[in-house]
Structures are given as structure tokens and as C-alpha cells.
């Protein structure tokens, strides 16, 4: 099994890598200015021309792009190529607003797959492996993205998509899946169903790793998944606007490798838009250096993270981002306090008695926000003494208060009451009409 997909690029000395980025950035701004009326107008309004971009540091002169720009120019107003060069479209579901459309040239699909091929190789997935792709296939980028990456490294892809869980488990056993790609919450559901079927992932399948993403999940959740199923759980990151799932951790599980020859990343203060130094937490901004159909300049993804530019122990020199625990638009404000669902998950999963399924409910009573955390009572922790159950409620409430500084009501519910998701789990139910 090769250690690197492209050793020359992945281990390139940082200074050389920066030179590559600088050259590509200069080409990119010229390209979008010449090919997209949208960008030309945007640059002109910001009084910046391609000639002003002479070094990597000059990137901050460029205006940001945001999701609303994609909505405003729906469907293809930001594209830089004619339709005949587009070999694929994906579209967002539009659950949080008007849908957005992303197009790909042949080369865009190749670059996307290459990014994943590097990631899969870095977690030891390659020829001989069987990857069960449990992300949705279709307009959502998850399924097809992982599918193409899997084929590129020479592994076998099983395009199960999400749902039909018992069939997934049968195929996992019959075809000997060694890796599965899906949302972490769906994998938890699969694990529940395997138990009901009398199957143990650890003993009765060949599964060695999971590639989990498309929703925030915590380090504590990782620890639990690994303990319960004996697999290694890796984080994957990406979003449809910049192609789809793109970047993974390596076997060191110490940050997600962002391929610098393809993408330029920055972290900014979400309030002021000012770039923040390495190591500071802020909003992730991505510039696509090689995309042709829909290049994005300083695109504000909305995820909050920290950049680590130190080369990784695995030998890769590209920058890493910390696990993403929240998005600016996932954040809920409860009684004036910013709460990220990922933060809450970290607290809940650190309490051994709390099972993996939970839900946060925010309501408003009069002028006051009320936060309720529902956790399921499993047989492992069920005591028939009411006082023990009350103690559990108090313990969870106290832990949340310590970390979030919010008093929430803890509600113990029966197992199976919290909806199981096949795709992205809905962890927060906001019933306030604000």
C-alpha cells in the first residue's frame, strides 16, 4: 500500500508550495476577471485588478464571495465556462434558502477525485479495499464524490447510498467492506441495527475504518465509535460550493489536510473580515486555485476552525484545519450565549451514561429562551431507583452549565424516541419564532 498518492506534491517543502500557490492565484484572478462578468464587476467595485495580485499576501485585497452570491446568480451566473464544457452539475437542497448549483468541467471532476485519492491513501485505503459509500447519491455531492475518489485509488466502491440499513449490513458482510463513508449519525444507526440483527461490526465484518462527515461531530463521538465498533473513525470535510467532500485526516487524526496546490485557505474574524494568524479560531475562507467551471474567490464557507501550518507527522507539508465543531449558521443563541451543537455534543459524550443519540430543543417562554436537552436512557444505565435517574439528569445539567454557562433542562427519554437520520442528523430543534 503506497504511503502517498502523490509524494512529490504532498511532501513538497512549504516554501515551494507557497510559490505554486502564488503562481496559481495570479493565474486564477486573471482567469475569473476575463471569463466571468460577475467577478469582473465585483473586482471593479472593489477597485482591484488582477495586476494588483502579485503575492500570496495580496489575496486580502480581493473581495469575499458568499453563498448569497450563488443564490443571486442562480443557476449559473458565476460560471466561467460555457455550458458545453460542463460535464456534471450538483445542486444544494435549498433547505436554508434558495438552492445553489455547482458545475464541473472534466478537469474539475479529476481534481476533486485527486483530492480524495490523496486523502483515502493517507488513511490506508487503496487497491484491494472495498468502500461502502453510504452518502446520498444524486444532487448531493457526498455519494458521487466519494465514489470517484474510491475508483481513482483502485478500491471497489459499493454505491449503497443512504438508507435501507439492513441491506447495507448484508452487503457489508457479503462483499467484505473494509471502509464505509457516511454521516457519523447514520453510522451510529447502522451500528444499532447490526446489534438488533445479531451482527457485530467488530467481529463479523471486515470494516477497518469509517470516513465520516457532512455534519459536525466531536472528538468524544469519535472515541465512542472507535470503542464500540473497533474501527478507526476519520473526519472528512468539504462542501458542495467548493466541489463536495474533499479533505480528510490522515492516520494521525491530527487535523484535516487541505491540499494547498488546489486550495488557498485563510481564517478570518467573522465580525470584521480581517485575516487571523495561524492558531486562532475564526471563519474559514477558501479560494479554489484550480477549479475551472465555478472558481470561488475568498469564499466564506461559514465553518469555524483553526489553521495549523506545521507539517504533519505523516510527512505531508500542506496546512491542516482543526476538526470543525460548528458553522456560523449552526450557532444558536440561547439567552444571549453562543452555543455550538458540537460543543454540547462534546459535553454529552464525555458522560459515559449518555447514549449517542441526543437532541437540543430551544423554545421561548414569554421573553425567556428555554434549552432542553433530550438524552435516551439505555438499559446499560437504567436503574429502577428514581433517585439514580434524577442524579443522571443533574449530572448532565451540571456538565452543560460548566461548559456553556447555560442552565438547560435535561429530559430523559425512551430509547428510539429521538429520530434516527440516514443523512445529516438534526440535532437542534429551534421552536422559537424570532
Amino acid at each position: 500500500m503506497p504511503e502517498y498518492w502523490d509524494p512529490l506534491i504532498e511532501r513538497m517543502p512549504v516554501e515551494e508550495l507557497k510559490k505554486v500557490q502564488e503562481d496559481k492565484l495570479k493565474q486564477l484572478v486573471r482567469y475569473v476577471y476575463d471569463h466571468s462578468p460577475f467577478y469582473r464587476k465585483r473586482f471593479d467595485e472593489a477597485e482591484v485588478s488582477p495586476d494588483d495580485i502579485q503575492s500570496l499576501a495580496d489575496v486580502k485585497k480581493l473581495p469575499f464571495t458568499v453563498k448569497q452570491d450563488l443564490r443571486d446568480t442562480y443557476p449559473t451566473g458565476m460560471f466561467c465556462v460555457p455550458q458545453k464544457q460542463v460535464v456534471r452539475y450538483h445542486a444544494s437542497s435549498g433547505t436554508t434558502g434558495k438552492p445553489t448549483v455547482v458545475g464541473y468541467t472534466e478537469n474539475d471532476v479529476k481534481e476533486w477525485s485527486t483530492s480524495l485519492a490523496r486523502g483515502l491513501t493517507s488513511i490506508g485505503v487503496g487497491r484491494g479495499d472495498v468502500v461502502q459509500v453510504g452518502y446520498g447519491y444524486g444532487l448531493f455531492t457526498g455519494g458521487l464524490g466519494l465514489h470517484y475518489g474510491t475508483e481513482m485509488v483502485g478500491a471497489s466502491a459499493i454505491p449503497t447510498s443512504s438508507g435501507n440499513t439492513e441491506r447495507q449490513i448484508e452487503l457489508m458482510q457479503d462483499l467484505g467492506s473494509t471502509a464505509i463513508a457516511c454521516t457519523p449519525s447514520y453510522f451510529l444507526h447502522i451500528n444499532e441495527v447490526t446489534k438488533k440483527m445479531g451482527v457485530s461490526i467488530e467481529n463479523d465484518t471486515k470494516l477497518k475504518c469509517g470516513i465520516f462527515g457532512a455534519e459536525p461531530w466531536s472528538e468524544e463521538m469519535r472515541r465512542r465509535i472507535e470503542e464500540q465498533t473497533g474501527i478507526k473513525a476519520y473526519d472528512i470535510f468539504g462542501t458542495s460550493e467548493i466541489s463536495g467532500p474533499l479533505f480528510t485526516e490522515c492516520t494521525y487524526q491530527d487535523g484535516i489536510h487541505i491540499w494547498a496546490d488546489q486550495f488557498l485557505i485563510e481564517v478570518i474574524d467573522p465580525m470584521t473580515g480581517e485575516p487571523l494568524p495561524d492558531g486562532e479560531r475564526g471563519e474559514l475562507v477558501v479560494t479554489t486555485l484550480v477549479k475551472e467551471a465555478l472558481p470561488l474567490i475568498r469564499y466564506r464557507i461559514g465553518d469555524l476552525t483553526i489553521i495549523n501550518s506545521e507539517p504533519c507527522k505523516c510527512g505531508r507539508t500542506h496546512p491542516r484545519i482543526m476538526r470543525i465543531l460548528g458553522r456560523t449558521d449552526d450557532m444558536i443563541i440561547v439567552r444571549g450565549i453562543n452555543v455550538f451543537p458540537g460543543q454540547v455534543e462534546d459535553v454529552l459524550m464525555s458522560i459515559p451514561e449518555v447514549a449517542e443519540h441526543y437532541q437540543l430543543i430551544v423554545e421561548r417562554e414569554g421573553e425567556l429562551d428555554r434549552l432542553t436537552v433530550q438524552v435516551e436512557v439505555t438499559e446499560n444505565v437504567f436503574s429502577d431507583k428514581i433517585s439514580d435517574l434524577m442524579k443522571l439528569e443533574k449530572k448532565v445539567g451540571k456538565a452543560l452549565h460548566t461548559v456553556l454557562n447555560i442552565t438547560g433542562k435535561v429530559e430523559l427519554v425512551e430509547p428510539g424516541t429521538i429520530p434516527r437520520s440516514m443523512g445529516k442528523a438534526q440535532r437542534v430543534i429551534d421552536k422559537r419564532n424570532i
Partner: protein
Amino acid sequence: MEDKLIKQISIFAENKPGRLEEITGQLKSAGINIRAFTIAEAGDFGVLRMVVDKPDKAHGVLHDAGFTVSETDVLGVEMSDSPGGLHDIATVLGANNINVDYAYAFATATENALLIIRVDDISNAITVLGGAGVVLIGIEEVK
């Protein structure tokens, strides 16, 4: 000692309409008879406790239906169905420093009533109650 213990079935249930119906429906179709029953409520949830004729079967049926179920050893204490009956039992336990976690009682067709108790020291309770001449109803007699 084993023959003096009763396996009580405890079920976690959310405090909302229809939950009891669901549980009793499961027991009914499995042909399980409930001999003693109580619900302890604690706000949003409650714990149902019951003594049934086939505890292992009841456990299996409810577990398979997705309920959170546990089995707890309790004692079935026979007491006189007349003034002071419960007091006599409480006196023996109190004098021997045995704490009652919870209890529920019901009258029977005989002149005795039955008290189900969960205590903190079950083997000691069996000894001292036996020593005081109190009759403990074993699992066989519940069937």
C-alpha cells in the same frame, strides 16, 4: 435465599399518554399476568415496577419491543391485613438498620396483605424478617 427473592420487572417510560397501554398490550399478547404493579413518576418520566408470573418472558418481550427494562430483586413480605400490620414489618427493619428504597402493597383475598419492598441489604432483611417469624413469599408463590 434464592427462593425468597422475587424478580421485579422495572421499565423506564416517558410520562405521556399511551405508554402504559403499549406496555400492558405487550404483556397481554404474551399471556403474562401482572400480580403487583406500581408507577413511580418523576416529572417527564416514570418507572413502572411490577411483579409478574413469568418475569424472564416479560423482560424479553418488553426489551424486544424497544423498552428500557431491568430486573430487580425485591422481597414479598406477608403481613397481617389488620391495624399495625405494616408497622410490625417496619419495626423489624428499622431495628436492624435496614433502609427501604421503595415499597408497594396490596390486599389479597386472604386475611393477609402483601408488601413488596426493595431494601438496601436484601440478605440481611431475609434473615431478620425470618427471625421475627415474618413469612416471605417466594417467586413460586407469585405464579
